[in-house]
Each structure stands twice: as structure tokens, then as C-alpha cells.
């Protein structure tokens, strides 16, 4: 550690103990867009072309037409993390928030050693376990008990530790009687509970968790959150990533918000959640569709019956969506739709546009469109739902997209097993022009 004076150390608060996790000016880029080097044959083609003084057949069109090679070069690198720095004190539970592509998953991957940063230093005091998804490496053919051994050892536990915790792992997952049954006979919920249970029984000093709360079983989730609190109070450091920050209320006190690869906020969790929920849609993340010209300050969020932004809803309960944007030019025939999907089931439901939904919008008008449902027609799943809002202008030659934005949410069923087939969403759009 003699060669570190150039590295700034960040301390949070006036803690005399060095932080458990320190991230100093971390940068990470990915190559994008380049076709070069996918196969050896292509590589030889490129080499041959260069030797013969011909144009590289595998270069991007961009390379050939771009004004300078500098822009072409820049286009091939995507900076997923751009100088992120923060530190986490021992025993602290911190939420890392950010939209898709904000760089938080990359930060976690670097922290846990899955990939390496291009620049910057990470200092970890204590043993680290990362769990980017619960139940990783479960083998269907093996029994629950065997899988706990496998999963535990993947996460760096010693067999003796696993054996001594086996009973409480089974107890916590609520499946003590099925521990010797092959995992392929388990329900999705049982598998998720077992995976989560192994994770919370880890004995490492630093825990890095990604989306482990994405379970529809509310009672079990509360149990998990309580267990996390218990772990934190016994001195464990926890960094947790989720798309559903309302799950974290009462667990974390501090939130870090990332946007476009940088830390934009580091402070109280409530403020962090607010900042994360009420974000502008425009160009916030590379995965979001760019807004059309003529639309500004677009946003899309889900809300609960108290009209508060939320991402946890109950089956048969209230569900609201809200789309907002400002028109910068006149539009004749504007429509909006919201589609709900899950990864495995695909399209579940479509809140269809109605005929007299929005129609004409004039330049300068602020538009707010709200759709409320008294009874959410989705069953609880052990996965995320994704709602995608789309605003478009209908023209004779087809639909022109003005806004497209997605939100993720979970559906609770309070522990019951609800079997329900999704139906068409009932309700009406409520359009508000120039809301105060």
C-alpha cells in the first residue's frame, strides 16, 4: 500500500474506523458497435485488406463515412461507469439506485470481482460475498440440501459453516420437510425462498445483493428484510441494488443514485428514492428510447392509492399509471398505451388507447395522462413485471413515437397462492392538459 498517495480516500461522516468498502474514481468501458474480431476468418480478411491497401470489409459503415476517426473511435466505447466514488462504513446498509444502464450493475460486478475496472481502485475490508440473483447455480437434479451445499460453496462458505446453518436455512426458507427432495420438484416460490435463505445465512463481512427481493411473497420478503436488518446490526455491511426501492424502506438509511455512469446523489434514502422515481425520461439511460423532437420532460411512473409513486402492488388492488410530457410543437392525433409484460410470459396486458383519449395537443402544453385501476388483474409472480408506456402520434403513414419509457414493479399476494389469468385492463384514461 505504499503506492497509494495519488488515490483519494473518501470518508463518510466522522467515522474513526476505515470504511468497509471504498470505491475511488472507478471507470469502466465496454466496446460497442465494432464488428472487428468476431471470428478469426474476419480478422484475416481485415488484415489482408489492410496489407493490400484496400478498405477493410469489416469496418463499420460509420468508420468509412465519419468525418474524423476520433468520433468513430469514441463511438466504439461506451462508458458504463464514469468516475464513480463512494464508501460504505462497517455495518451500514446502502441502496444503490439507478435506471437500467445507469451503471449500478457494472459497479456491483466490479465490486464483487466478476469483471475488472479500466481505472480506479476498490478497497474491501473483510470477506465479500456477492449475490447477483438468488439461487444461482441451483441444479434441478440435486436435492435442496445438496444445492445448499453447492450454492453456499459457490458463495465462499466452508462446508462446516453450511452444515451448522443447514437447519436454520431450511427453517427460514419454510421447507424443512423438503430438503431431501430434488429441486426440480420445488415450486418457483420454494426455489426463490431457498436461494434467498442461503444468501442471508452467509457469514461474510460485506454482502453485495442484486435484486434478491424480487419475490412476490410479501410475508417472506418482510422476513428477509428483517433478517437483513439483523445482519446489519451485527456489523455486516450490505450494498443492495433493486429496481423497487420502496421495498427498502426501513432497511436502508442511505441511498446512492447513479445516472449515466456517475454518482449523482449520495444521502438520505427518502431523497434518493424520490430522485430515482421522479426522473426525467429524456436521455436518462441508453436503454430508453430517445424522445422525439417536439417532446420535452417526459416521464412515466406507477402510483398507489395514496397517489404516491410505488413499485409494489397487490393482486386485485389499486394500480395507477401516470404519463407526463410537454409538447414543443403541435400534434394532431396523439394516443398513448401501456403494455405489461413479464420475462417469461411475454405480453400480459395492454391498457389500450381509447378513441377520444388525447387527440390534439398544442405547442407549449404540458400533458398529464392518468390511468387508474381498482383491481389489478395480475397474479403474484416470483419475477418483475415491466410496464412500458408509449405515446405516439397517429398519422396517415403510421404511428410516430413521441415517448417510450418502462417501469418495473412486483405484485404482492400477501403469501396466498393466487391463480389468475390476466385479462384486459378495465378503466379510463384521465387526461389533464396544463396541470398546475
Amino acid at each position, binding site marked *: *500500500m*505504499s503506492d*497509494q498517495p495519488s488515490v483519494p*480516500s473518501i*470518508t463518510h461522516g466522522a467515522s474513526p*474506523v*476505515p470504511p468497509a468498502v471504498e470505491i475511488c474514481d472507478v471507470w469502466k468501458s*465496454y*466496446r460497442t458497435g465494432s464488428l472487428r*474480431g*468476431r*471470428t*478469426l*476468418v474476419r*480478422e484475416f480478411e481485415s488484415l489482408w485488406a489492410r496489407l493490400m491497401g484496400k478498405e477493410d470489409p469489416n469496418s463499420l459503415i460509420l468508420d468509412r463515412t465519419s468525418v474524423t476517426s476520433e468520433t468513430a473511435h469514441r463511438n466504439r466505447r461506451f462508458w458504463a461507469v464514469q468516475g464513480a466514488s463512494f464508501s460504505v462504513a462497517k455495518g451500514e446498509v446502502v441502496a444503490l439506485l439507478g435506471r437500467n444502464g445507469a451503471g449500478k450493475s457494472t459497479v456491483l*460486478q*466490479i465490486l*464483487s*470481482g*466478476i*469483471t*475488472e*475496472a*479500466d*481505472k*480506479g*481502485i*476498490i*478497497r*474491501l*475490508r*473483510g*470477506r*465479500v460475498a*456477492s*449475490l*447477483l*440473483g438468488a439461487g*444461482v*447455480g441451483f*441444479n434441478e*437434479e*440435486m436435492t435442496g440440501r*445438496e444445492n445448499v*451445499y*453447492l450454492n453456499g*460453496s*459457490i*458463495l*465462499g462458505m*466452508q*462446508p462446516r459453516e453450511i452444515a451448522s446453518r443447514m437447519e436454520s436455512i431450511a427453517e427460514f426458507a419454510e421447507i424443512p420437510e423438503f430438503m431431501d427432495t430434488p429441486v426440480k420438484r420445488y415450486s418457483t416460490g420454494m426455489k426463490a425462498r431457498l436461494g434467498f435463505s442461503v444468501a442471508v445465512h452467509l457469514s461474510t*463481512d460485506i454482502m453485495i445483493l442484486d435484486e434478491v427481493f424480487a419475490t412476490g411473497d410479501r410475508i417472506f420478503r418482510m422476513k428477509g428484510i428483517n433478517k437483513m436488518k439483523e445482519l446489519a446490526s451485527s456489523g455486516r455491511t450490505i450494498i443492495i441494488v433493486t429496481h423497487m426501492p420502496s421495498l427498502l424502506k426501513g432497511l436502508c438509511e442511505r441511498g446512492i443514485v447513479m445516472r449515466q455512469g456517475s454518482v449523482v446523489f449520495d444521502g438520505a434514502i427518502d431523497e434518493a428514492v424520490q430522485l430515482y422515481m421522479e426522473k426525467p425520461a429524456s436521455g436518462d439511460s441508453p436503454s430508453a428510447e430517445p424522445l422525439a423532437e417536439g417532446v420535452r420532460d417526459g416521464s412515466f411512473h406507477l402510483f398507489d392509492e395514496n397517489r404516491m409513486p410505488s413499485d409494489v402492488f397487490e393482486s386485485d388492488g389499486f394500480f395507477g399509471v401516470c404519463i407526463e410530457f410537454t409538447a414543443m410543437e403541435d400534434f394532431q392525433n396523439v394516443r398513448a398505451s401501456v403494455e405489461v409484460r413479464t420475462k417469461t410470459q411475454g405480453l400480459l396486458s395492454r391498457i389500450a388507447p381509447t378513441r377520444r383519449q388525447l387527440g390534439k395537443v398544442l405547442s407549449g402544453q404540458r400533458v398529464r395522462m392518468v390511468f387508474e385501476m381498482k383491481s389489478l388483474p395480475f397474479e403474484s409472480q416470483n419475477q418483475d413485471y415491466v410496464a412500458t408506456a408509449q405515446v405516439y402520434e397517429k398519422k396517415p403513414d403510421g404511428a410516430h413515437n413521441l415517448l417510450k419509457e418502462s417501469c418495473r414493479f412486483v405484485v404482492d399476494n400477501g403469501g396466498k397462492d393466487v391463480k389468475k389469468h390476466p385479462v384486459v385492463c378495465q378503466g379510463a384514461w384521465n387526461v389533464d392538459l396544463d396541470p398546475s
Partner: protein
Amino acid sequence: MSGGGEQAESADMVREIRPGRSWFHFEWGEVWRYKHLLYFLAKRDLALTYKQTLLGPLHLVIRPFVMTFLFQLVFNKLGGISTDGVPPFLFYFANNTAWAFFAAVFGSVSTVFVSGKGLMGKVYFPRIIPPFASVITSAVSLGVQIVFLGCLILYFFFAHGAALPSWRMVGMVLPLVQLAMIASGMGFIFACATLKYRDLSGLSGVVTQGLMYLSPIIFPLAVVPESYRMLAALNPLTSAMETWRYCLFGEATLTAPLLWVGWGLSFGLFFSGLVIFNKVQRKFMDIV
């Protein structure tokens, strides 16, 4: 906050991750901490292979038996290739056993990034563990086959008066270790190369098959003319296979230069493969 002060204060271990570590930076401590994972991964692989299969581990025996019959028919009966004074069936069965081990290790190590992608992208553990676990899995299959080989040797000894089983057989561990080193070294290099150039993965079958014909599997080194022996020695598999048969039957063409070159190349392949793998694994998730 000074570096010295931190170290004095914190009794916990401090791990620094910084980019651009050298090619030879191995985290052996981490590997040691995860040693049990070797066992559990190997166990999982075995469960995956043999649970809910009709014949289960019987496949391990059927395959070399069939191959041995075919080899004996084609190369010995039709081709008239000598088998160094060893009963042809025994000769081919022994060679097949060793070769199956080599091919299994090479096959699983060279595809380790592809097969382990799901796991490696989600959890950190030393990436060197899965390839070594697959070596263990292959070694278990090898063990079963060696038991059958032992039975065959005894049968041929009593029924046909073939070579007496002797203390030499203990030495067969050495050529097997050598085979594992060559196979995993080549596998590491192949795994890294296919990560960058996907079209190379189609070559692995050709490589295995080509090597089989270039190594003394279907023929003993004794049938190779003197003038080509040095060339054959450049294939480290030659010395491994000759040693293997020497240990089993006491019949082989072994010379000191053959052994030196063979072991030298084996170590070279293994460690260069290990170094390349270690370098590439740090960023492989970005490429996959």
C-alpha cells in the same frame, strides 16, 4: 488517511482491486478458500451426467469396449499394425481409456467459459475452479474405466498368459497427470481463443481427432521409423502414451530425451495455458 495507519488499525484483511495487474498475479489464497467448491462442482457435474439416464455409468464401459473392437478390427486385423507384443484387445482398451480421459478434459476445459457463463456472470469465485472441477469429473470416469482395465489385465494374465501385473502399475499415475496437464493447458488456451474468435470452437473436434492419429494410440511408437522418432517426440502425448503402456505392460519405446521433451512441453503447455486463462478470465464477462 495514511496507508500505514489503516493497516495498523484494521485487523481485518484488506483486499485491493485495481486494474492492470500483471499476467502472473494469481490469487492463490482465494483459490484455497474456495477449495470445497471443487468437490461440489464435480459432484454436480456427475449428478448432471448420470441421474435419470438409462444406462448411467455403464456408458463409461460400453464406449471403450466398442472402440476397442473397432480398432482391433480395422487397425490390427485389416491394417496389420503391431501392438508391441501386447494382446491387441488389451492394447487398444488401455489406449482408449487414457485417450478418453484426455479428450474429456480437453473438451470440458476448452468450453468452460461457455458452460459456466451463467454462473460466472452472477457470482464471484476463482474462475480456475470450474476447469479443475471438470478435471476431477473426468478423473472419476477414468477411475471406473481403470477398474475395468484392471479386470481385463487379470483376465488376460490368467487366460492367455499375458504380462504379469506388477509394481510398475503404480507409476501409471504419472502419465495420467501428464495427460491432464496437456489437456487442460490446451483447453485453457482454446477456451481463451474461442472467446475472441468464435469460429475456432468448430476446430476443437478436428484437433482432438487429429491428435489421436498423431499420437501412439492406434500404433506403438516402435512401428515409427527411427528417423521420425524425434519428430514424434515433439508431441508430448507420445511420451505420455508410451509411459502409460510401459507402466501397464512393461512394453514401450521409452528414451530419456523422449521423456525430457515430453514433460518439458507438458509443463510449458500447462503453465502458459494457466497464465493466459488467468489473464483472460478477469474480463471475460465483457466479451461473452
